[in-house]
Each structure stands twice: as structure tokens, then as C-alpha cells.
């Protein structure tokens, strides 16, 4: 039963009442949400086979009933592949590391094999163990997923040698496209536009950079996904970048070769999905706009792009197909382009695997890429012609990461998902995730929680659905980037389509600071906090089996808070007798809702506009609201401000990870900005620098150690 706000008026004459809303302990803070569009688009289908794919039109599996698909498939960590396999009647075997033993993909599979301990090089990159798993389970095919061995030619070769199908392109295509230097040469030969740069193995980075002209991009030859990739604007940065990228490339890909090319300022990252079979047919399945990135990793993607016209799209698609055909590509692949403001496009690289963001292409084209990959691997010709490939509606994907968006747009965070609820109650929402409530986000793997995909007939519809979905997404136990995602998709520049890969640093030059409330938003937040508090307090006075004779307070004070600059410093919130009305700063708001104080989501109506309130706990607070009685507010003014500890002389780890190198020892003098140590987390190396000039007092970490977030690394005097 929930406490409603229907309270008889006489409760209100009970005189001054002391009470407060400590949003810190009992009810946390509020993540704010903006109106929910009542109109649901025309696409309200939901296929019973695919639980998480509201709004996705799967094509009917043509050969599903035929014999040839009695395959067993081995795959690492890919629940959505399993769904397709199940739909096609293919048995699956999940390979997993020991920490993933109870992961979603393992539970979904018909059979599971543990291939080693948590570190990827001992499990998901351990070819011997995976080959053994393939043999022991009698799998006839392997789907390699997104990362790990998906673009590893050696793995594909070994599978081929044993007569096991690799669901992906042939070895030679992987080899050709996997090497960025070679792929560029092939692209040039196939008359694909390429970026000016140095097509060779880098030895003297500074000289090459000078030849090409700054800014330059240094990246791992074998790399992908932004790892081992750095931009340099001058000689010093080139040297640093070269050093870090070499290390990262070596640790992530086991190949430290780098390449350098001209860095195109203010570009868009647009990629073309291609699909080719073993019979020489190839299609382009339109583009994906992936410009919203941080540290060269994609955050928000959409399909189609607002920027491309039909001619450019076709030109890009045709070049992508040329490239695919030049390497006799088969299976699904992605050709990445940089597009400048004049719609010139340059080939970047080709990913010879399924991309993380493939669902948005599936949604607008109606093709199930996993199914197509399996068909192609089995040797079937493509079912579609280029003119069959439509753009139906609009799809947007947000990558929900376990990371702190307030630090460099996202530094990894780890923890246990103490509560986890996907917004699957909404239509046209698809969530691809490999985790569930209780899962651990560990330092061993990418901190991605899920891909949240929404679909609409128009872009506006898809965006509005995304807003809803983000507001209804409940993640507790780890810091996540939903606040940033929500800001991006509601930013005027994003809405108008005015984006580039520099979107985040341009829009938030001082870093992301969270949502800025408008005056109206502030009033609504205060009103909901007050109403929430009223219901919580009402309940606190209700003891079952006894008669309660207490009333509600006639007025509340909202304590001064830097979050509310538009309101007078001690605005008064007056819940009026005609509940559920709340007066804030002279304006009357009607707050109504079912007050289920145990639920993480509180759908409210404020002046009849639907709002979603998330009740948080502890440190995740975005807006600190203290609702107090006038007395408590007055007395709070006597409470001393507590001085926080001076952190400039203390270096703490901003994230969990492992210490790669420590550059100082006690007694050293360091300059402000000088590197003190390097922490590697989620395969990214981060240089920790001194916040001030001083002498090193003590060093609390050493290379090879694992550190947690907030752990003391180095103290200065």
C-alpha cells in the first residue's frame, strides 16, 4: 500500500511541525526527467521470440526449418547472438572465464565451457582453451563476438584448419583489413578516398609527424576501439603519445606497431555497414552516425545520419562495397569513414566483425545481421538486392557504461549491480546487455553495461523514446553515464544534428558537470522532493496497531543550495491544505503520484505533466535537496561548515585499476603537471600528474599492484 497525498484538511491545522527530508539516507536525490511523450509511434510491434527487441522487425529465418542448421555454435559473451541462434534452431555453447560463470550469456546457452581465469589473455584470448572447447563440445561453428578474437586471423586460420566455420570473413580479409597500414594501401588501390598519412611502420614519430603536419593521430596498427590511439598537436605530445600508444598496443593487441596520419579537425565519424556473401555479392546497409565520442570511443550512435544526402550515402556505400569486394569479403563488416564539413569522406578502417552498434542498422533495415552472418558462413547467397535495402524510421543507440561521466566524460568505475532494471516496459526499446542484477562490473573487461536502442518513425520520436528509456533505466551499485547520455540526446546541437567527433569537448569545455536545472525545473524538483518527504514522514508516524494523531507540517523550508541559483536562498515550500498542491517560491504546483517508497522509480505528475523521479541513495546524488521545517532550517544556520581535506598534496586513484609504472620515489621534487604514475584500467593507460609543485613525501603504490578508486597513491609534502 502506498501513502497517497489525500489527507484530510484538519491534519494541516496541527500547528508548526518539525520535519525534514534527508534525501541522503532515506530517499536519496532525484534524477530529473523531462516530459514523457504520450504518443507512441506507429511501430509498436514486439516479437515474442526476442524479448528485448520491442520495435525491431526481424526478418523471418528462411532456412530455419531446413536441416543444414543443426549447428552447434561456440561464442563468447554475446547474448544477442544467442537469441538469434535460438530463433534459428541452432544449439549454442558459451565459452566464459571463471568470473563470468553466471553471466547472462552463460545462462542462455545450451552448454557452457569455462576457458580460464578472469584476465582476458588467459581466457577469452586463449586460443588453445577455446579450440579445446570447440573440440570437446563438437561445435561446428564459432561466432567470435565483437572484440577479443573477432578480428584475429590466426584464430580464424586455426578454426579453418579443423574444419570449423568461423562466422566472419575469411582469413585473408581479416589479415588485409586488420592491419591499418595494409588496409589503407588496399583501399587506395580500390579507389577509396583515404587520409593523407604515413603508410608504414613508425619508428621516428616526430619526424613523420612534422612531414604530415600537426595535428596528427597516432594509432596502433593492429588496434581498434580507440585503444592505443592518441592525438598530438606538438612534438612533446607526439613523444608521449608514441610511448603510451606503444605500451597500450602491446598490452591490448600484442602488437606494438603504430601508424601516424593527418588528424582531420572537426570531423564526423560515419560508417557504412556492408554485407557480403561467398558468391561475390555485396550490399551496403546504409550508414551509422557515430560522431559522439569521448577519447575516440563511441557513446551515442544513430542511423541514418542527419548529415548525409542520398548522393553522398550512395557514394560512400559504393566505395565501401568496392573495398569489400577488393578483399573478397564475406560476412558483415563495417567501413569507417571520416566526413568533413564539406561532405568529403575519407576511409578510416574496416572492421571485419559485428560492430557493437549493429542494432541500429538492424532496426532501420529490418535485417538481422547475426542471422545474415550465419547464413553467409554456411555458404548461402544473400537474399537481398541493394534496392531492397530500405531506411525505415530512425534508430538511436546509447552505450550505457559503468563509468563516472563527471571525470573526463567517463572514467571506469567498478562495483556490483545491487539493483538493475532495464526499461523494457516501454515500447520500441531494445536493450542488449550481458549482465543482470547482482553482476559484477570488474576491472577485467570493458565497462559497458548495455546498449540501449530506441526506435521511432522519425528522429524526434526515437529521441523522445530514448529520453524515456534513460529515465526509466535503474542502475544501482556502480556509477554510470546515463546523466551524460541524457544531456547529449537533449542538447540543442545534437537535436539539430550539428555534431562532430569534438562534440563533447566543445559543448562541455570544462568537463561534464551534470544537468543544469532551469528555474521551472528547480521548482518542480523542490515540489517533488517536498511531496516525497511529506509521504515519507506521514508513513514514519504510522505504527501498525496503534492510533496515530499526528498531522502534517504547514510549511517547509528548502535549504540554500548551490544547485538552485534561480531561487531565493531559502525558498519556502508550502504544501497547501488542498493537497497534492505544493507552493514553491510563490508558484503553485500540483504533485500527484503513487508513493511507493520502496520503488526506485516514482512516476509523478506535476501540473499534470508526467515526470519520472528516481530515488537514489548515498553518493550518486545529483541534486542535494534538504527539506526542513522552518525551525530546523533556522537552526541549521548555526551549524559550522566542515572543511574538506586538502587534496592538492594527495594523489588518489580516480578509478580502480592496476599500476603500470611509478615515476617518482620519496624525496623527489615534482613539478606541477609532472607524471607521477600510470594507472591502467579497462585497458586504458592513464597518466596521473602532480596537482602542485612539491616534494614527494611517500609513495603508497608500486608497479603491478591493483588499486581501488580513491586509494592513496602518492603524498606530497
Amino acid at each position, binding site marked *: 500500500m502506498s501513502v497517497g497525498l489525500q489527507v484530510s484538511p484538519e491534519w494541516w491545522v496541527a500547528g508548526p511541525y518539525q520535519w525534514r527530508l534527508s534525501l541522503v539516507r532515506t530517499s536519496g536525490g532525484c534524477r530529473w526527467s523531462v516530459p514523457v511523450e504520450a504518443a507512441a509511434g506507429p511501430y509498436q510491434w514486439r516479437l515474442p521470440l526476442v524479448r528485448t527487441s520491442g520495435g525491431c522487425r526481424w526478418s523471418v529465418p528462411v532456412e530455419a526449418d531446413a536441416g543444414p542448421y543443426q549447428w552447434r555454435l561456440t561464442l563468447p559473451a554475446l547474448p544477442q547472438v544467442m537469441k538469434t541462434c535460438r530463433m534459428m534452431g541452432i544449439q549454442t555453447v558459451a565459452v566464459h572465464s571463471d568470473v563470468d560463470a553466471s553471466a547472462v550469456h552463460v545462462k542462455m546457452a545450451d552448454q557452457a565451457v569455462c576457458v580460464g581465469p578472469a584476465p582476458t589473455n588467459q581466457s577469452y584470448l586463449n586460443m588453445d582453451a577455446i579450440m579445446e572447447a570447440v573440440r570437446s563440445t563438437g561445435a561446428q561453428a564459432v561466432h567470435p563476438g565483437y572484440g577479443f578474437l573477432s578480428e584475429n586471423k590466426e584464430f580464424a586460420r586455426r578454426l579453418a584448419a579443423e574444419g570449423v566455420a568461423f562466422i566472419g570473413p575469411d582469413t585473408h580479409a581479416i589479415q588485409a583489413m586488420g592491419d591499418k597500414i595494409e588496409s589503407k594501401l588496399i583501399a587506395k588501390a580500390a579507389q577509396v578516398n583515404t587520409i593523407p598519412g604515413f603508410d608504414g611502420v613508425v619508428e621516428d614519430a616526430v619526424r613523420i609527424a612534422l612531414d604530415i603536419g600537426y595535428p596528427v593521430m597516432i594509432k596502433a596498427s593492429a588496434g581498434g576501439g580507440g585503444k592505443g590511439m592518441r592525438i598530438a598537436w606538438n612534438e612533446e605530445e607526439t613523444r608521449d603519445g608514441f610511448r603510451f600508444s606503444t605500451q597500450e598496443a602491446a598490452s591490448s593487441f600484442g602488437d606494438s606497431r603504430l601508424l601516424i596520419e593527418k588528424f582531420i579537425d572537426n570531423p564526423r565519424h560515419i560508417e557504412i555497414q556492408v554485407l557480403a556473401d561467398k558468391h561475390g555479392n555485396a550490399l551496403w546497409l546504409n550508414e551509422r552516425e557515430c560522431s559522439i565520442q569521448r577519447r575516440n570511443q563511441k557513446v551515442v550512435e544513430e542511423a541514418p545520419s542527419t548529415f548525409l544526402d542520398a548522393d553522398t550515402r550512395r557514394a560512400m556505400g559504393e566505395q565501401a562495397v568496392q573495398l569489400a569486394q577488393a578483399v573478397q569479403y564475406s560476412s558483415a563488416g563495417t567501413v569507417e569513414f571520416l566526413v568533413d564539413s564539406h561532405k568529403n569522406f575519407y576511409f578510416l578502417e574496416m572492421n571485419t566483425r559485428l560492430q557493437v552498434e549493429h542494432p541500429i542498422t538492424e532496426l532501420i533495415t529490418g535485417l538481422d545481421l547475426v542471422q545474415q552472418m550465419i547464413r553467409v558462413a554456411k555458404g548461402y547467397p544473400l537474399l537481398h538486392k541493394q534496392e531492397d535495402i530500405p531506411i525505415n524510421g530512425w534508430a538511436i543507440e546509447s552505450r550505457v557504461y559503468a563509468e563516472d561521466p563527471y571525470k573526463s566524460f567517463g572514467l571506469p568505475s567498478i562495483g556490483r549491480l545491487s539493483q538493475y532494471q532495464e526499461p523494457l516496459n516501454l515500447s520500441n526499446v531494445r536493450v542488449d546487455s550481458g549482465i543482470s542484477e*547482482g553482476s559484477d562490473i570488474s576491472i577485467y573487461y570493458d565497462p559497458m553495461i548495455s546498449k540501449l536502442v530506441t526506435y521511432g518513425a522519425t528522429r524526434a520520436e526515437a529521441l523522445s523514446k530514448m529520453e524515456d528509456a534513460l529515465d526509466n533505466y535503474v542502475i544501482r551499485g556502480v556509477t554510470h553515464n546515463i546523466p551524460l547520455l541524457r544531456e547529449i540526446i537533449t542538447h540543442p546541437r545534437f537535436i539539430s544534428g550539428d555534431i562532430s567527433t569534438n562534440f563533447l569537448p566543445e559543448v562541455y569545455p570544462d568537463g561534464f558537470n551534470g544537468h543544469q536545472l532551469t528555474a521551472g525545473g528547480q521548482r518542480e524538483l523542490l515540489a517533488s522532493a517536498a511531496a516525497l518527504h511529506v509521504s515519507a514522514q506521514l508513513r514514519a508516524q504510522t505504527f501498525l496497531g496503534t492510533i496515530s494523531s499526528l498531522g502534517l507540517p504547514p510549511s517547509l523550508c528548502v535549504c540554500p543550495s548551490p544547485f538552485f541559483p534561480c531561487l531565493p536562498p531559502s525558498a519556502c515550500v508550502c504544501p497547501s491544505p488542498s493537497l497534492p498542491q505544493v507552493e514553491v517560491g510563490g508558484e503553485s504546483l500540483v504533485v500527484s503520484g503513487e508513493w511507493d517508497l*520502496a520503488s526506485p522509480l516514482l512516476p509523478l505528475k506535476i501540473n499534470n505533466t508526467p515526470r519520472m523521479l528516481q530515488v537514489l541513495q548515498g553518493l550518486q546524488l545529483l541534486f542535494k535537496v534538504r527539506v526542513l521545517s522552518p525551525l530546523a532550517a533556522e*537552526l541549521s544556520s548555526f551549524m559550522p561548515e566542515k572543511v574538506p581535506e586538502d587534496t592538492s598534496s594527495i594523489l588518489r586513484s580516480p578509478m580502480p585499476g592496476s599500476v603500470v609504472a611509478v615515476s617518482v620515489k620519496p624525496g623527489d621534487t615534482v613539478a606541477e603537471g609532472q607524471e607521477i604514475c600510470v594507472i591502467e584500467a579497462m585497458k586504458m593507460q592513464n597518466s596521473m600528474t602532480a596537482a602542485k609543485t612539491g616534494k614527494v613525501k611517500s609513495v603508497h603504490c608500486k608497479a603491478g599492484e591493483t588499486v581501488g578508486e580513491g586509494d592513496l597513491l602518492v603524498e606530497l609534502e
Partner: protein
Amino acid sequence: HLWLRTSFGGLARVKHGVVAATASQVSLQQQCRRYAVGQLSVKERIDKKRQEALLGGGQPRIDAQHKKGKLTARERIELLLDPESFVEYDMFVEHRCSDFGMEQDRNKFPGDSVVTGQGRINGRLVYVFSQDFTVFGGSLSGAHAQKICKVMDQAMMVGAPVIGLNDSGGARIQEGVESLAGYADIFLRNVLASGVVPQISMIMGPCAGGAVYSPALTDFTFMVKDTSYLFITGPDVVKSVTNEDVTQEELGGAKTHTAVSGVAHYAFENDVDALLNLRDFFNFLPLSNQDAAPVMESHDPSDRLVPAMDTIVPSETTKAYDMLDIIHAIVDEKNFFEIMPSYAKNIVVGFARMDGRTVGIVGNQPKVASGCLDINSSVKGARFVRFCDAFNIPIITFVDVPGFLPGTAQEYGGIIRHGAKLLYAFAEATVPKITIITRNAYGGAYDVMSSKHLRGDVNYAWPSAEVAVMGAKGAVQIIFRGKDSQVEAEAEYVEKFANPFPAAVRGFVDDIIEPSTTRKRICRDLEVLASKKQVNPWKKHANMPL
């Protein structure tokens, strides 16, 4: 009785002590009392006295109190209690000292240095005393003690908790032995009320010398960070006796007592935070030992499954996890009021609700020292269990304990005697006792942690539970000492003992349950056990191993 004199004498050296307070009050009091008694009617005199009582030591002293970041005695009561519910007693009581000029009018304050009475918190009755630092530094006179005793006596008669808000420089030195007698009167009542009504002490300023024994005798001692101190003797006396240099904060601040000494149970940020949280805390407690623990309305379904529990215990037996994660996930609305969160962290104790009912939760914390039992954690757990038992609060115990901590430090410190306290407390308790073995329950510590053998009402094991004398490696080393096939033997031992079956087949656990159903099971059991009646043999009182 030398210690008593020393410690009480030391009070004058407390920074906010009595001596300093009296000296500067003279001019202030002259202003306050410029009227002739004879010219006023009785009614006017009553009003006048009431006005004076409300002002305590006068506005300048109130301002000084505020300047220190502290509230006045009356402001504190107002904030703690429901509006307009406070009923004050003894507003006209004055001290009776006639030495050192204390008999003069200007040295008399209606109500003296404490405000007492009763009121309501969320509608439930509570007796309160709040020491007034603005009057003689809150020092304890005979009259002051008498006022406190009066509310305590009545609280015991009607069966309602007593909350003391302590802010006192110590004994009223001018009164000498009368002040000491006052302390003893209070101590006696603290002892008599113990186990009859809940007693809570909130330390909101200095509390030194003999005065500290009243909080020590109460059930819970809370402190306010940076403004409260508890010590037997202040830093000056410490310096003169042991030549140690120590600040008030280091010696007896909130941090010291919540993390090092274990004297205090919780520290709050400031006065407002403390009093508002105390209101929340109060809602967990029954009014007396005759009263059932309160049942609140809960929005959290009692049959809620908690899937996250199925994966919380790591598959590697050596890997730690956070017992607080389990507690938060299982109790109502994640609302857990942890007692002594910074002290003996290898055991977690605190209050929560299950389907609205108050429960006391005790859990080994694998994250700290593998959750082993040592001296401090045994004492912490034992005191909490005894409080719950005294006040009809069911006890839920989460067990993951590798044993008692070995070593000379523990043995010399008397782990045998202190460990026995926890054993004693669990065995003696007659409230409903539900135990969940989440992982290890090894050796004597298994027996101690509310086992079936100590009259546990419902004892569950998770599939990850291991009830054994010790871990496989150690056991095999003893059983097969000197033999070769230890690896095989270890595998055999694991197969035989590293699971819940040995305990389950003997009925020492009632069931092996899916962790995700734990909340549902506990809620159901509590409902059944609500009518539990169990009586210990008649005795004058037990003789626990103190």
C-alpha cells in the same frame, strides 16, 4: 577512591569548565534580574521566572553556544520532539548551594542547568533531559541530578524510553559531595532502568569525569563530530599524570570513540543532523521491555525475490564480499541503521525492518579480517544481541566466519573471556532468532553465531555454506599428518564437508535455501515466530563473563 577525586577534580580544567563560566556571568545576571520581588504579583513572578528559564544563562551565553556550532538545550529538545509536544517539568527548580556566593540571586537560574520533561517522537512517548551549557557550563548540581532522576523514575513507571542530551562541564564544584551524590543517583537509575526502557545518550558537548558513566550505562551513546568529547580526565590532567600530549579531539572526540575505543555507537555531523537522525532511530525501538517492537507500514513486498543474492558469494572461497550488500538487499527498502560502523568492522550490527517489523541484524563481515571473531567484535556483537533480547527485537544472524582470530595479542587480551560474551548473549536470548549461513561456519565460531544448538529458531544454509571444524587444507593436514596423498584427501574432505549437507542431514540447519528467497523466508518465519514464548530458568540475575 582516589580515582574519583582525581577525575572529578580534573573537570575544572576542561576548557569549557565551570570556573570560566561563573566568572563572566556576573554582569550579565545583574541585567537580567533588575526588579524588586515585592512589587510583582504572583502571576507576574511566574511569568517572569518562565521567561528567565527559557533564556537559560542569558542571550550572550546562547550566542556563545551558537558560535561554537552548538544549539541550546531548548532548541535541541524542540528539534528532537514533535512540535508542541514537549511538557516541561521542574522549570522553577533552583540549585541549593550557599557557598562561594552561589546563594546570591544573580547566581540562581530557574530550572538550573538542565531542561527536563516528556514529549513525543512521531507520536510516541519519550522522556528527555537536555543539559544547558549556558548555565554554569551545564555543570551538575544536586538540583540538576534530582530533575534528571525525576524523569527517569517516571519513564520507568510508565514504560517509555529516556533520551539524555549531554552537554556539561562536569560536577558543580561549589556543591562538592552533593554533586557527586547526584551523579550516583543517576547511575543507580541508569542501572535499574537498564533492560526496562531503552536509554539513549546523545553527547553534544563535553562530558567528562564521573559524568561519562551515565552514557556508558545507557544502551546507546551517540556523539556529534567536532563538538563533543567524552573522557575520564581532560588533556591537562593527562599531561600532568602521564606526560602525554593529546588534544581533546584525539583523547575523547567522536572519531576516537566510534573508531578506536568503541565507547560510542555512532557519530553525527552536527546537532541538527544528530537530532533528526535520532528521530529516525527512535522509530526502531519499542517503548519498553513490555512493548513489542514497532511495526511500520512497508512498501517493500515481503515475498520479494532478490536475484542478486544468488551470485553474491564468490565462487573462490578465499574471495571477500560485502556482508552489507546482503543486508541492504534483504531488508525493507535498503534501510539499515548500522550501529558502530567504524569499530570492529569484522562484525556488522544494526537495526532494520523486515515487512515493517524492527529486527536486529548481526553479520560477520568477510571484507574485514575475513569476518573472524576477535575481542572487539565479540563484545560489540554481544552488547547488541543483549539489547535486542531485552527489548523483544528478533535477531537475524548472517554467518560467514572462519573462526576466532588466533595470536598472542588476542589470547593475552582475553579472547576466551570476551568471545564467551557473544556466545553467552546468543545462548541467553529468547527473542526469535533466525540464522543464515552464507558461506563458512567453522569451528567454535559456528557454535557461537546463533547456531541451532544455542536455540536458534530457524537456521538456514545457502548452497555455498560449509559447516566444518576447519577449512579443508588445515583439516587434511591434521587427519593425514605425514601421509603423502594429501591432495586426494583434500578433495575427499571438500566433497564430504565443504557443503551444507553434513549440517543439514543432522538437522543443524533447517533447510538449504536459494539465496534469492532469503527475504521471503525470513519474513514468513518472523510472522510465525511473532508469538514465540521462551523463558529462561529463574535466577536473581545471570553471571555473564564480564
